[in-house]
């Protein structure tokens, strides 16, 4: 498997389009999570249902920040891993040449 540069660029653009499209087409969409909708569905058909356990930690206002930090962490982690692989391959090439 080896994707050409063109294919890669097209794929990245496609991801961008898929991310942007709903925001352009549905500007009024509220950012409710699907589990909030599910909560309402549960309570609408089972009025007596009371959640029997609460989250032990509520991040409150920090939510949005933590969310961005997680993105940073994930993307940063990927960057470090691929940098490591890149370095290793460069080192191998050098070793091959000197032999």
């Amino acid at each position: 498997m080896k994707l050409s540069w063109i294919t890669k660029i097209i794929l990245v653009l496609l991801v961008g389009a898929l991310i942007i499209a709903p925001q352009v087409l549905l500007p009024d969409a509220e950012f409710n999570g699907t589990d909030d909708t599910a909560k309402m569905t549960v309570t609408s058909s089972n009025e007596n249902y009371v959640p029997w356990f609460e989250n032990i930690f509520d991040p409150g206002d920090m939510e949005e920040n933590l969310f961005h930090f997680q993105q940073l962490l994930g993307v940063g982690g990927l960057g470090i891993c691929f940098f490591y692989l890149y370095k290793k391959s460069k080192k191998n090439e050098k070793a091959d040449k000197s032999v």
Partner: protein
Amino acid sequence: MKKAKRTMTVAGIVFFMVVLASQPVNAMHIMEGFLPGGWCVFWWVVSLPFIGFGFYKIEKIFKDKPEQKVLLAIAAAFTFALSAFKLPTPNGSSSHMTGIGLGAIALGPFATVVVGTIALLFQALLLAHGGLTTLGANAFSMAIVGSFTAYGIYKGLSKLNVPKALTVFLAASIGDLMTYVTTSIQMGLAFPDATVGLPLTILKYLGIFGIPQISLAIIEGILTVLVVNAIYQYKEKGIISNETFVDN
């Protein structure tokens, strides 16, 4: 003295990572306390053997194939990154991806079960997303069904003469979708609506969890193809051992 300082630093970094790693998006997982006790126990019992065997598999990677550790790190980072990207969906809510497919393809399904469960645990503990009581059920839908579906599709299509990129795309995106189908079935089973019957109840939850997920599944498929392609180049160069990737 120096050692103590280093230990402190590492502990600090780990704590910070744990705090940051989790995510606040209200989407996808079954909420804390929203699954009756019996079902919580049931899904925990179903999931635990997979998680246990997954730890055994990861230990084996560390012992026998240390050069695969970087793949484990990539799979974990990919899962963290993708599950933090939330997108609005056609029915006005938002949802996120799982990133499980990559791990299933690169490391096999069992090791990925552990990666996914750890991600879910962070989310449950620190971001009030998902929950401890529902962790068994959520681990089953995301980490177990998701990774085994992706792995199965990858293996199956690899035997047929399907182009690699398409194989990876289908494995990752269908694995992602199956997670939501499973969540819907779990919710339907726990809260069967007597007036419409079980199949319709499941369909109702499928509308909430599953349908909004389709565009996300496509994005996840494409991103997985890009990362697998990058890993593949290093495999060709012999940087990652040849037996990695359950391919061939």
